[in-house]
């Protein structure tokens, strides 16, 4: 079930020796041909994603409102972003989001995958059920949880009646102290099953004789998990941890749908701040500067990714 993960470099000495013995014209054609296959992808991505992103670099140095003309103002937007308490607050929320998103769904996913790996019967059924929240649309998941957690007759009220203090009639998405965590909970709920399925596959790639040897040595379930399962799925864990940083910086749709950063910025993250600056405050230039500053972190992750790969990590 395991395979070479994203980004494993291939070395194919035989192909290059074949190419070298060919006449120059053929050799040149061989070198150009793979790029032809890549052309549609690169062109369309340049056109839609990279090109407009580069245009954003220019806008970030203007006072553009989103319509009309733009005046060049140098790095003023960046200086403003650096001092803006809203940006700091949003970054802090991204950081909290990252800490939660790295631990809660990962732990649940690992737990679910471990349980699945211990059974044969109904494994596919449970795996499918775990995966369903990932298949469901974000707009629907958001609505479902807004219904379940509503302060008048939601689950908080029901649990309050059962005697659990502090959560009866709480407006989870509407209270400044709960909002960020409540939305994060919804995202964790929709995400952990996806991780469980991937971890399960990684676990199935571990050599079973390792477990047998451990059992002979008298190792219990926990020690087997700690010393065989976790090291065995390490490349997957590292890859998903890196992706989690990127996903945590990009997080947008659930927050936008449920709270739109509110109440009073209590669940504002960088992407929703950027969106609101551009589309409700009409500070498109400033929003661009915030967005590009954020992409700086993404580049750092990218460098980390290639650094780990160079050091021989199989990610």
């Amino acid at each position, binding site marked *: *079930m395991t395979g*070479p993960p*994203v*980004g*494993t470099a*291939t070395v194919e000495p035989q*192909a290059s020796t074949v190419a070298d013995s060919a006449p120059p014209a053929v050799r040149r054609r061989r070198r150009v*041909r793979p790029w032809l*296959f*890549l052309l*549609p*992808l*690169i062109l*369309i991505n340049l056109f839609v*994603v*990279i*090109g*407009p*992103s580069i245009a954003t670099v220019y*806008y970030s140095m203007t006072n553009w409102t989103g319509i009309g003309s733009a005046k060049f103002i140098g790095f003023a937007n960046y200086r403003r972003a650096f001092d803006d308490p809203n940006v700091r607050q949003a970054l802090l929320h991204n950081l909290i989001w990252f800490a939660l998103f790295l631990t809660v769904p990962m732990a649940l996913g690992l737990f*679910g995958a471990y349980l699945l790996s*211990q*059974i044969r019967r*109904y494994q*596919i059924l*449970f795996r*499918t*059920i775990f*995966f369903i929240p990932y298949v*469901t*649309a974000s*707009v*629907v998941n958001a609505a*479902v949880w807004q219904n*379940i957690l509503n302060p008048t*007759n939601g*689950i908080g009220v*029901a649990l309050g009646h059962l005697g659990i203090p502090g959560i009866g009639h709480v407006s989870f998405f509407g209270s400044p102290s709960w909002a960020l965590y409540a939305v994060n909970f919804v995202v964790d*709920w929709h995400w952990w*099953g996806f991780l469980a399925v991937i971890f399960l*596959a990684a676990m199935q*790639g571990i050599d079973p004789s390792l477990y047998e040897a451990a059992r002979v040595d008298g190792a219990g*379930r926990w020690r087997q998990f700690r010393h065989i399962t976790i090291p065995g799925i390490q*490349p*997957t864990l590292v*890859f*998903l941890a890196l992706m989690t940083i*990127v996903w945590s*910086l*990009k997080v*947008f*749709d659930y927050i936008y749908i449920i709270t739109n950063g509110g109440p009073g910025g209590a669940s504002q993250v960088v*992407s929703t701040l*950027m*969106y609101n600056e551009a589309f409700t405050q009409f500070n498109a230039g400033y929003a*661009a500067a915030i967005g590009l500053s954020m*992409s700086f972190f*993404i*580049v750092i992750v*990218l460098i980390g990714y290639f650094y780990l790969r160079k050091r021989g990590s199989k990610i």
Partner: protein
Amino acid sequence: MSGRQRKGRLGRALIYALLVVLALFALGPLVTLVFDALKTNAAIGANPLTPPTSPRLSNFATAWTQGDFSVTMRNSVIICLGTMLGVCLIAGLAAYALSQFDLPGENGVIAYLFLGTALPVQLFLVPLFFLWTKLHLTNNLLGLIIIFWATESPFATLLLRSYLLKIPKEFVEAARLDGASEVRSLFRVLLPLAWPGLMTIALISGLFAWNEFFFSITFIFQPGLRPIATSFLAFQDQNSTDWGLTSAAALFMVVPALLLFLGVQRRFVSGLTAGGLR
């Protein structure tokens, strides 16, 4: 029965019990959708989380006409199929180049693809919107599909590439030595082997296109062209949200995606896991 066996059986029961708890956690919230779609608003107001006492189907009929689902569902089917086919073609060709050739600058391409997946939408949204307005690609299903091709293909390529790397190069080499053209070796030899990988990226991009709302509300504002997510959101925007109707509308959105997933789920999961995500 030895002590060890009894312990094993108890452990097994505990494992299944925990799995059931997790399954209820995953599915329970979505089951309330089905409950509420079958209830009157009075019944939902009394308790939104319990099964209906006298189920009725009228919410479905009302939601279908009010949400204009016959139009939006058709639009979403077009967007979904267009995205799936385009992504499979674009990512399929690219992944073929990245996996079967010894490409100089391969790391650069991978870094580019990684960046393409990692850039937040809000970063390029405003310039893209102006570009699309100039090109008359707003209020245009193809315009939306092209955006999805661009945003979904990089990750699909990375995933499919890892999948194709597992296929021994000897197959394609052998076909080439036999004198088969590049295109022939691609379609005759590699395509059948790559099928689960292709199905996986088709499903991921198809689900994305079906469930997507942000680009849809930004780039399409003509009622006759709106996709299904906007139909659903319309039920929520109304000041007094009708939960019975909203739940029925949600099911119109969820059920096709679910059927698509269940139909190919074995292949999907194996393609996903044998590919990039292990």
